[in-house]
């Protein structure tokens, strides 16, 4: 297991390299100029050229990439062009906030999704199954930024129960687990949880429905096992696949919450990424994408290892 784990970690290096090359090239292809964020429109061509030289943007692309990757190898992710602040601080602070949001959404979504999925799978082709199916399809289909706006109108504007934006009265740096802060998390986390509820419920429904028709379930009943014990066996059999789906969903929650973070002004990686895109803030863009991609790869690795631990049939070689 250890050698498998080590090999996977080593394999992350070429993935990280590939991601870094792709994101570097993609941001270069997009039209626009990072200097527009930091210079008035009246800046003369000479002043622009001088500033381009200061930020190294006048160098050929391969040289720019080599400098960036060289600094990265030494743990320096560079400085944001738009803000002048170190990219590492910006990215890790934002990722931390996104993790908080993603984990909260996962805590809401996964138990609900599993419960609904199992219910639908067990009572397959009944009214209950159809109701759960309808809920999951709606969850996956409803645009979550629209749902976010609707929830804000209902719970913030009309009822005044929950705040509509931000990560707490003093900002994310003062985060603590009290109601004053948690209330800021409720609406974005619920909105973000809707899609994974649908996906997890659909997955678990299919797994449970399939497993319940297999011979081993009949054999367990034939041995006189109670319904609860049989379901426990079914759950263990479904766990590995469900875990894999949930792991991927956690990755999506972290990297795919740009719209939700924008709607709720949540200071996470999605919000950071969207600003970096609009400002063509290349170092910040590259740093954020790289960290998110590595998180996704790392998440896959953790899920693989956990799968093997849960289900001994899954051999790792």
């Amino acid at each position, binding site marked *: 297991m250890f050698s498998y784990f080590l090999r996977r970690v080593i394999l992350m290096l070429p993935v990280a390299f590939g991601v870094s090359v792709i994101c570097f090239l993609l941001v270069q292809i997009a*039209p*626009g*100029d990072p*200097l*527009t*964020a*930091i*210079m*008035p*429109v*009246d*800046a*003369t*061509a000479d*002043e*622009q050229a*001088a*500033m381009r030289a*200061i930020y190294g943007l006048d160098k050929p692309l391969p040289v720019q990439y080599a400098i960036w990757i060289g600094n990265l190898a030494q743990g320096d992710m560079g400085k944001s062009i*738009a*803000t*002048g*602040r170190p990219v590492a601080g*910006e990215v890790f602070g934002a990722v931390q906030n996104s993790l908080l949001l993603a984990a909260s959404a996962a805590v809401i979504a996964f138990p609900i999704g599993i419960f609904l999925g199992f219910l639908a799978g067990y009572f397959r082709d009944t009214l209950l199954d159809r109701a759960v199916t309808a809920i999951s399809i709606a969850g996956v289909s409803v645009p979550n930024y629209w749902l976010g*706006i609707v929830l*804000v*109108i209902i719970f*913030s*504007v009309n009822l*005044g129960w929950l*705040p*509509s*934006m*931000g*990560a707490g*009265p*003093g*900002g*994310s*740096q003062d985060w603590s687990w*009290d*109601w*004053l802060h948690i*209330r800021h998390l409720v609406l974005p986390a619920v909105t973000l949880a809707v899609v994974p509820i649908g996906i997890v419920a659909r997955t678990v429904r299919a797994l449970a429905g399939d497993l319940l028709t297999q011979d081993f379930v009949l054999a367990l009943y034939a041995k006189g096992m109670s319904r609860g014990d049989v379901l426990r066996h079914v759950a263990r059999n479904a766990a590995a696949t469900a875990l894999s789906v949930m792991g991927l969903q956690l990755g999506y929650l972290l990297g795919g919450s740009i719209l939700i973070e*924008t*709607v*709720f*002004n949540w*200071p996470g990686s999605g*919000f*950071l990424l969207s*600003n970096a895109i*609009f*400002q*063509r803030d290349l170092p910040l863009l590259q740093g954020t994408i790289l960290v998110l991609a590595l998180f996704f790869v790392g998440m896959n690795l953790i899920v693989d290892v956990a799968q093997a631990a849960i289900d001994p049939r899954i051999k790792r070689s």
Partner: protein
Amino acid sequence: MRHFKEGIAALLLAASLTCAQGAAAQGTLRIGMTASDIPLTTGQTDQGGEGMRFMGYTVYDSLIEWDLTSADKPSVLIPGLATEWSVDAEDKTKWTLKLREGVTFHDGSPFTAADAVWNFDKLLVDTSEQYDSRQAAQGKSRIPAVASYSAVDDYTLEIITKTPDATLPYQLAWILMSSKANWEALDKDWEKVANTPSGTGPWKLEAFVPRERAELVPNEAYWDETRIPKLDKMVLIPLPEPNARAAALLSGQVDWIEAPAPDTIPAMTGNGFTISSNAYPHNWTWHLSRLEGSPWNDIRVRKAANLAIDREGMGALLGGLMVPAKGFLPPSSQWFGEPTFEVKYDPEAAKALLAEAGYSVENPLKVKALISPSGSGQMLPLPMNEYLQQSLAEVGIEVEFMVVEWNQMINLWRAGAADAAVEGAMSINFTYFIQDPFTGLIRHLSCDLIAPNGTNWGHYCDPEMQALFDEIKTTFDPEEQDKVLRKTHEKYVDDALFLMVTHDVAPRALSPKVKGFVQAQNWYQNFSSITME
């Protein structure tokens, strides 16, 4: 049962804390900005006019400032850290500024002429120890006239310009003074200064969370007693998404938002919020290509386009939050003058002019226009441009749009009409600051500022106009200079040099608790007079 009681107690505590938060808001003004980040805090701000408004003229002062006390008349320059300024009678490149005595930075150090010199070096001398590329990027281009400067004594500053330039006072109104002592105390590190900046302004930055909030408190020792803030605190929150801004105001999380979307205004006014607006030097136009072969070289076509737009009708699209253009500058501008060409809606006259030029609805003039789907100060660019497209089609001008994202639009604005990247577009819809003679008039049409050297996008060059620009720069008496500026603007309008459409009115939505705000006809505002009920 014990858990139930604990739960009830927790809920009561939460409720009391929530109420306490509301109570703490007395004397605290929370503003939702359109910026996506807190503007640069070290002195010379970024984020355009909004940056100067919230982090510039609040924490810092400039030598010469804008008068922000009146809502009824256009802003003029007034003494700031300099009490008086004059140009040498013999040598028109030599300016002397008398500095205000007894002014201290927030860190307690005194402001002197040596500090002013140190601040100019911060922006202009890249070999100086305090040179800051981020502030230089914002400030250097604002003072193109400055050649050198020196401290004659503690309270006398001398500035030499490259050529005689009577617009220097307007240029100096951009330059904000940071504390040298504070920078030295913070290991000469601008990153550290960003967290604990020190200016001489009426507000002090107390707390700062990048991208999330900045908290300003009054500088009780401010040199102008009439501008010592009455509030306990002002909190700035970046809220770039218009719906998030509106929801934050309606749910009571902020007391003030910048630029409410027109379609959210009925909900706000219906809930007791007020909309504050006023004319200010902002322009929403189409700049026209004057390259050889451009149809906009024909004055009949330019006038026809200007007569084809029902600007009052556009007001409905913007919830009435606009000033219909009567010229290039807003009608309330001190430099508007008395142009003879009346910018109004007269489609028949437009058709007649186009017929003279050889075009009609059946045989339309075909033009390509650069527009953006969004952007700072662009108001509602897509529906507004579609409105123009429809209006122009009705008189015989068929417009094809080239839509580009805002960041790229800025690049194309800088590149100019002749650049291959604009793909033959003959006009560009761009909005901007027109507060001083340079940004308001000179930069758009000066021969030496033809893109990419400057922002004369259309490559216009006219000796008569250039002579007027030269006269603006060499007329040192402010009243005489105003006369030249009026004459220049009259030529702008009479020659119909742009498609003049509208001016923004800087709308902001305020909670009924906000009292005492006077919205000046300026990009910057005075927050010192505000109280919270």
